[in-house]
């Protein structure tokens, strides 16, 4: 079963995450890192959820990853694949959708790459993934 385009809800930016959403409009996908413990985290916060330091910063991600888990929501008008994707070179996984894909060919561990998807209205593009 091939995926169809599903119009995604627009994320509502707040002062803490405005920079992330401004970057997606520039075609960049940012991950938040901590200077104190060097660890990345997601979703982005100003205070590191791992060590508690407020010395955190954004860094552009490679956009590569692999599927940690996924589920194809079938009993809705436009079926879609929700997933956690583990980001390349990190131990963190983010919630996302796998788009432009054959649902029945998806598997855990599969390599995927970043592709931005439109959001409703004039919302910022959303980081999604597609089979690499």
């Amino acid at each position, binding site marked *: 079963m091939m995926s169809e385009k*599903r119009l*995604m*809800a*627009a*994320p*509502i*930016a*707040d002062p*803490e*995450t405005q920079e992330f*959403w401004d970057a997606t409009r520039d075609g960049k996908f940012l991950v938040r890192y901590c200077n104190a413990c060097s*660890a*990345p*985290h*997601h*979703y*982005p*916060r100003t205070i*590191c*959820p*791992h060590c508690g330091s407020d010395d955190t910063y954004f860094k552009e991600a490679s956009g590569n990853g692999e599927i*940690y*888990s*996924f*589920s*194809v*929501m*079938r*009993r*809705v008008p436009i079926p*879609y694949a*929700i*997933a*956690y994707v583990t980001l390349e070179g*990190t*131990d*963190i*996984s*983010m*919630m*996302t*959708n796998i788009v432009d894909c054959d649902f029945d060919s998806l598997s*855990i*561990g599969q390599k995927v790459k970043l592709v931005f998807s439109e*959001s409703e209205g004039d919302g910022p593009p*959303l980081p*999604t993934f597609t089979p690499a």
Partner: protein
Amino acid sequence: MSINGKAYIAGAFEHPTRKAIDKSLAQLHAECAKGALEDAGLTKDDVDGYFCAGDAPGLGPLSLADYMGLKLRHMDSTETGGSSYLIHVAHAAEAIALGKCKVALITLCGRPRAEGMATGTAPRNYGAGTPDAAFEFPYAPTIVNMYGMCAKRHMHEFGTTSEQLAWIKVAASHHAQHNPKAMLRDVVTVEDVVNSPMISDPLHRLDCCVISDGGGALVVVAPEIARSLNRPLVKVKGAGEAPKHQMGGRVDLTYSGAAWSGPTAFEEAGVKPADIKYASIYDSFTITVLMQLEDLGFCAKGDGGKFVSDGNLISGVGKLPFNTDGGGLCNNHPANRGGMTKVIEAVRQLRGEAHPAVQVPNCDLALAHGTGGSLGTRHGSGTLILERE
């Protein structure tokens, strides 16, 4: 300091309704409160502590104390979704142990059916101020696809199968056939479950719980009050609570917060999983039960599929009778929050008041466990160990 032996569950009531078009939400809370207090042999004027969660209307304990005419000296609106009510029992025992109240009332009610809520298949919006909202809501996480991801990962890591998960529904249906109020009373087979429509891989329709209106209430009292009442003594012996979340992105969907709340409760109670005669296990989906059984220590991590197979959860057949009222999978799941009914059936079992066809003989030690929120993102876990004296 421990709560072991500091409080007793003296009253328990499950609302008979499954679709409450003709009742208000506050009315349901009051009817459950009345039912549980009458069960205990108490009245509302005896209540000095009140506990409710996010299902309560308006300003929670304020709105409902006003509606029901309660005079209180202690209140608690701990909100951890469907696990709230197990945690309320623990908090009530703590408050009683500290002398903050002597008769604690806990209520849960909701009418998602009457309101036509798309409980499992529409993403829930907890509001723009919710920190994860922008990073999750657009991807349409629903209750069923979040638990679907847990099941998928469990299958990947441990070889768990859909047929093994189906045994959980089969066991619940064997119990529900004896419950005239259960929404799904037909006994189903493993084949029925795996051949039912796929909702969100790998969860089929029959892997999911029912959607129902209704609710329930509990009355937790100080020991001297429990002994003055003409009811079996159901002692709160141990409790544990914990949140589990995405750990800053270090997502691990293979276990739940029961891995923390369970051992805490067992330690406080001074008992082991093998001592438990009956278990109420939160059953929003079949995978929910399987993961929690592992995390609570009833079997090793990854062995849940084998543990639940071949009727091992069926009362009178298997080693661990579970959810003998039919549970959320077959009986009811009021307000989309199954924690309250988990405690109520455990109390019935300990009193010897479960249906004779499912009553566990000499049931003197029971566990009730609840999950609230979503195993796929962030959830609360509450474990209770209860003993009949």
